[in-house]
């Protein structure tokens, strides 16, 4: 290593103090694990919040023991009040979308594996990388703070539609300090993710090792690269939107608040703001955000599947092009969230067609996966089960998109549980399956120990059946006109649906409890698992060419050289049915020309 090199690793040798090693570490692997830990804490919070919501929805008047611990005033006699329900719902969505679905598949796995996949010693700007995690952590703490400040967190939903979010405390509990804290936290979060993109993009473009052409990058790295491009252009729009929202609160401006609003018999001192402006800005971020959550999952699942199918994908490039197409289209379709929002009805039609167009790359991706299974020698383990589950979930979530892409059908289904089912299947559950798949697959590399595969399989089976039991019935609720974001069902035609809600709640409690298996497995394997070999799954990409866990600069001072495309399986080499990317061996049938 040259001490004058701009290479990140050159700037910092292995740290020795605990703080530099584990807390303010510049090492992308430690930062990846920190992100993973943050995601784990956030997912537990989000899940507990969803339990509380589900129990309340099914048995509205039933006290939930201990609920008063969560809020001093929101749960008199442990029965949830409407505002507390909405606050819990908002926080569930916020924690899940931002601090789990964005953080884990993208920031956690991406940080750990992207530099290894490209053959780099570290990210190009390790200090920014460290700041990326710590700003995200601050954002997380600020968001958590809102439970304890004023009258609690905001109740406006994670979409924070103005003017409910912009007029202040008069609009309801949590709409004063709660919204300010929410917007501040999200703005900080945006900064953190922009720091992330600042590292990911130059790493892929500039720090690839010798021989690592773009097309030799493994699938997850392509996915992270595409995701970071999306993150770059969408978080940089959400942040200005949050700034405008905060200014409407604290500085008395009127960006989002229209004239002549009367709330609680008080004429609001705002004039002329545009209600739809917030929705435009938000969904310009919000729709790409859905793909920020799902595209890394696609990459991870492809990676896991290929390794376990023992054959390459039908086409590496088609997958990459399709993910790219999803990314580009995601900016052109955001209006489908606003079909009945009062946009010009003509724009609704204009937005409808690119939305329908998105089914094409999505279908291509699914077909390539399924087509690749043809003729495979599929290994069944926890990681591949979750990857297969991901495909099933993604199909289910995808077909409900047919309905929601059409403005005329949205008249029936907009803001109903059909939408809840749709986005949970696609962005939430599919992404979580991607996370689980990645965890079972990469755990040996990240922590140097094997996870218990039998427990992993059990976890898969119960989770797979559980999530279908939770979210499939929500489609039926939506068809029957059950509006979402209701804390109780006082509407007459929704009364017959309460039984379905009770079924869903039981399934949710069951599925949530099943996650304890994962947590046990995770903690137990972390400390007492079998030590992991270098390449437990006989993989080909660079992460399997280094020890588990990798040394400080990933490659032990050597510079890897890459000779092959990433997925050379089903070939006869000296090592078996696969050929590693950095193996100079020449094998008949291996595709190694880019």
């Amino acid at each position, binding site marked *: 290593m040259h001490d004058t090199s701009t290479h990140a690793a050159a700037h910092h040798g292995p740290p020795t103090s605990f703080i530099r090693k584990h807390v303010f570490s510049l090492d992308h692997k430690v930062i990846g694990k920190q992100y993973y830990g943050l995601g784990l804490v956030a997912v537990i919070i989000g899940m507990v919040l969803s339990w509380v919501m589900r129990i309340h929805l099914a048995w509205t008047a039933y006290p939930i023991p201990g609920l008063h611990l969560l809020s001093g005033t929101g749960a008199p006699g442990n029965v949830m009040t*409407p505002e507390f329900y*909405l606050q819990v719902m908002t926080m569930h969505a916020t924690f899940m979308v931002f601090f789990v679905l964005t953080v884990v598949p993208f920031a956690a796995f991406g940080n750990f594996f992207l530099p290894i996949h490209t053959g780099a010693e570290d990210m190009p700007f390790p200090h920014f990388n460290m700041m990326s995690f710590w700003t995200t952590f601050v954002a997380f703490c600020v968001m958590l703070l809102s439970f304890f400040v004023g009258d609690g967190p905001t109740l406006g*939903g994670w979409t924070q*539609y*103005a*003017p409910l979010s912009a*007029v202040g405390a008069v609009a*309801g509990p949590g709409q004063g300090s709660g919204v300010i804290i929410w917007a501040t936290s999200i703005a900080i979060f945006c900064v953190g993710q922009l720091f992330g993109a600042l590292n990911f993009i130059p790493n892929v473009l500039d720090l690839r090792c010798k021989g690592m052409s773009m097309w030799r990058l493994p699938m997850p790295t392509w996915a992270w690269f595409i995701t970071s491009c999306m993150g770059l252009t969408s978080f940089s729009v959400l942040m200005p939107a949050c700034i405008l929202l905060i200014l409407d609160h604290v500085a008395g401006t009127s960006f989002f608040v229209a004239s*002549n*609003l009367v*709330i609680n*018999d008080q*004429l609001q001192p705002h004039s002329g703001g545009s*209600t739809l402006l917030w929705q435009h800005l938000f969904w310009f971020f919000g729709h790409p955000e859905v793909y920020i959550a799902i595209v890394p999952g696609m990459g991870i699942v492809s990676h896991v599947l290929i390794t376990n*199918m*023992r*054959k390459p994908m*039908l086409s590496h490039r*088609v997958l990459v092009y399709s993910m790219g197409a999803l990314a580009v289209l995601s900016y052109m379709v955001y209006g489908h969230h606003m079909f*009945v929002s*009062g946009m010009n*009805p003509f724009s*609704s039609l204009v937005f*409808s*067609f690119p939305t*329908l167009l998105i*089914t*094409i790359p999505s279908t291509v991706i699914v077909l*390539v996966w*399924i087509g690749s*299974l043809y*003729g*495979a*020698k*599929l*290994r069944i383990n926890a990681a591949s*089960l979750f990857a*297969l589950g991901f495909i*099933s979930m993604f*199909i289910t979530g995808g077909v409900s998109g*047919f*309905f929601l*892409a*059409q403005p*005329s059908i949205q008249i029936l289904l*907009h*803001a109903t549980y059909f939408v809840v089912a749709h986005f949970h299947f696609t962005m939430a559950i599919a992404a979580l399956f991607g996370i689980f798949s990645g965890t079972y697959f990469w755990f040996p590399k990240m922590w140097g120990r094997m996870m218990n595969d039998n427990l992993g399989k059990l976890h898969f*089976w119960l989770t*797979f*059946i559980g999530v279908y039991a939770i979210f499939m019935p929500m489609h*039926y609720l939506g*068809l029957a*006109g059950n*509006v*979402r974001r209701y*804390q*109780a*069902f*006082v509407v007459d*035609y929704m009364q017959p649906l309460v039984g379905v809600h009770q079924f869903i709640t039981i399934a949710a409690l069951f599925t949530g409890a099943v996650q304890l298996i994962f947590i046990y497995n995770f903690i137990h394997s972390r400390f007492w698992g079998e030590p992991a070999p270098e390449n437990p799954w006989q993989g080909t990409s660079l992460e399997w060419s280094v020890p588990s866990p990798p040394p400080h600069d990933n490659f032990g001072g050597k510079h890897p050289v890459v000779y092959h495309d990433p997925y050379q399986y089903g070939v006869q080499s000296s090592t078996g049915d696969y050929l590693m990317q950095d193996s100079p061996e020449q094998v008949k049938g291996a595709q190694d020309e880019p």
Partner: protein
Amino acid sequence: MAKLLAVTIVVIAILSAIPIIRNTWHPLPDVSAHGQAIDDQLSETMWEAGISFLASQIILAWFIWRYSGNRPGEKTKTFPGGATGLVAAAVILVGVEVFALGIFGVKAWANIYFTPPGADAMPVQVQAGQFAFYFRYTGPDGTFGAIHPEMLSEANQNFYGIDTDHDSDAKDDIVTAEMAVPVNREIRLLMHSKDVSHSFYVPALRIHQDFVPGLDLQIHFTATKVGRYEIVCSQLCGLGHYNMKAYLSVLSQDDFDAWLKKQAALQ
């Protein structure tokens, strides 16, 4: 275990389809003049989505069943036709399918949004506020009085902020908490929000439109069946969102006249 997964996927797919095929849960029966087009569109989409759903889940399950496990001696194979065939299939089949859906859907949408209301449509104003709807009828003069936001007071039951003392247009306005419309008469609905965003969702009438504060929108519809239906809010508007609802009575013309008279007396 792969075979078990395959069976599970198929069983889940079929179980999911059963309530749809048996129509266990379905939208409320349509009582509007324009709703049939939406219902047709929904059922067409349901067919196409349902077939895609079942077909892809079953093929996925079949491949998992067939191609799992290390089968010594057998070499891995590539899907006949490779990726090019699949991409072509996706683009042609799915592309044509969804575009057909999209284009047919335009008709249903245009019915509601691109046709202007008839000249004799009855104007009704609906005002959304946290957390109730209030409706306004013009009274005999056929015009609505102006809204004075500063006069709006729920405490005095002046829900619209109208000046009945000085405004001659407002004197005969009838403000109600329940909506009633005559059957088979086109209604021009003027939507006004007094505070935040709300939504006017009448599943039975196949109407769904957000209120935009600062921007008064209009929609129009004709109810074709006498009965009592529910109007609910579907846009998160605050803590009472779940309880923001009103009843819509579709009455015969005579009943409606009587109802309006009774409401006028209560003003």
